[in-house]
């Protein structure tokens, strides 16, 4: 099974409810906004509880992988990214990108969310380059390509698009709002 990158791994194996959530809550406070936590648990009820807890606290529940008896839950700490102002001028809507994909236009879709976010829900054939790795992985992209940058809500992709433009990429488009409202086909590590 593919490994999914996380900033912190919490081992809550063998613990019964409520301990997996109690420990998850504590671990979350040590993370920075936007970072990913992986929780290992064996309590079957933990999936529903982590999902509901994330919903009520504003953190992002990304998904769960089953590895034998162990459940691996992935969460992303809430980032408050909705508030920032976007600067990259060249933008497209989700629908515009969807049309391009349906027409099989020769474009490149770069997903700059964390690897764990990408793993559970992404556009087929999109390329995963998490924001934090972009600078060191610019050589994986071609400067002349028509590059659509997506994230969850359009903010990280805005930064990424700016970064690409600064580095000489000429045809970079930020997709708004991004995966949070994506209605087209997606792929997940679970199917």
């Amino acid at each position, binding site marked *: 099974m593919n490994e999914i990158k996380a900033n912190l791994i919490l081992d809550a194996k063998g613990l019964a*409810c*409520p*301990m997996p959530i109690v420990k998850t*809550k504590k671990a979350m406070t040590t993370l920075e906004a936007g970072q990913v936590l992986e929780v290992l648990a064996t309590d079957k009820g933990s999936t*529903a*509880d982590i999902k*509901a807890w994330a919903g*009520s606290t504003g953190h992002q529940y990304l998904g769960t992988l089953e590895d034998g008896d162990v459940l691996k839950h992935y969460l992303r700490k809430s980032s408050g990214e909705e508030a920032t102002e976007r600067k990259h001028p060249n933008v497209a809507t989700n629908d515009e990108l969807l049309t391009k994909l349906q027409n099989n236009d020769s474009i490149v879709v770069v997903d700059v969310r964390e690897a764990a976010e990408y793993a559970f829900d992404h556009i087929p054939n999109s390329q995963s380059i998490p924001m934090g790795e972009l600078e060191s992985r610019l050589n994986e992209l071609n400067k002349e390509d028509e590059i659509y940058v997506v994230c969850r809500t359009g903010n990280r992709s805005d930064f990424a698009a700016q970064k690409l433009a600064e580095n000489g990429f000429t045809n970079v488009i930020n997709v708004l709002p991004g995966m949070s409202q994506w209605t087209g086909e997606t792929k997940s590590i679970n199917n």
Partner: protein
Amino acid sequence: MTVKAMTSKEVTTKVFNKEKLFVLDVRNEGDFQDWKIEGENFSYLNIPYFDLLDGVEEIMNELPSDQEILVVCAKEGSSIMIAEMLSDEGLEVSYLQGGMKAWSEHLEPVKVGDLENGGELYQFVRIGKGCLSYMVVSNGEAAIVDATRMTDVYIQFAEGLGAKITHVFDTHLHADHISGGRTIAQNTGATYWLPPKDATEVIFEYQPLENGNDVTIGHTTINIHALYSPGHTIGSTSFVVDEKYLLSGDILFIDSIGRPDLAGMAEDWVKDLRESLYERYRKLSEELIVLPAHFMIIDELNEDGSVSEKLGTLYAQNHGLNIDDENEFRKLVTENLPPQPNAYQEIRQTNMGIISPDDEKQREMEIGPNRCAVR
């Protein structure tokens, strides 16, 4: 203050006695809405335990000071934590021992009545899930009908009465709960009876239960007549015990009737269901006391906690027995049905012996209400 454990048996007593109880259910909202502890005079607050990790101050003014408070969760761990937090705030509270898991498994035996020539009939009320099973006892022998998977309860109960279990029946192939019939038969050497039309796919030996079978418990004192009454399943069979009681399985309930769709055959079985309810049962004495395999709502419990009613009264009051128009009847039992029971396909396969999940898995499969009826 110390936190007390309350057992499912104690809660059952409160349900039967219509006592007051304030239930603080700390499971997820969805789980609570789907299935909770029901009591006529119970009141509720549902707030997930994980919303209270920083403290219980915010709910203190929603909790009564003049009523017993019971904290409930799925398995008990979270309810103990929340109960202790409330206790630190000066409240005296209890938690449900074993949580909803234990509640789902609790069986409360209630004596339904004495039989001719000294026998007794007991109903086992599975209060948390609405399943009803039966034990007929006579002259040192016992028969069990529609046993749940908590087989020790029946075996110990029979031992307590000094009775040997000789016959075990299932009225039909159950889809809402895992039958304990086969296990009890294996452990006691009793004969396990199943309607053959429901048992075409079972992979174990059983005694075919057919219309007109008479089984005797004790010294020829109690007769159990099998009465073929299809509709919930094609094999569904009722029993007339001692010419006084009608064990109706999942065909007829107190305030509802059986649903024909759980084996995927709703359209085909509607006619059978109607014929069983409107013709076969009609020919029986109205004085028979109906003992169903389920109750749906807590209002169906009698004063003593048992679930029963005279057949004549049901013909007068049960809506499902009073629909003259066949199309209307068809609509009632095939359209707008309640959701199907949790894991009902896997439960059917378990009851056929095709799959053998472990105890933990069986528990999980049975979680939730039974939903075998339509009203």
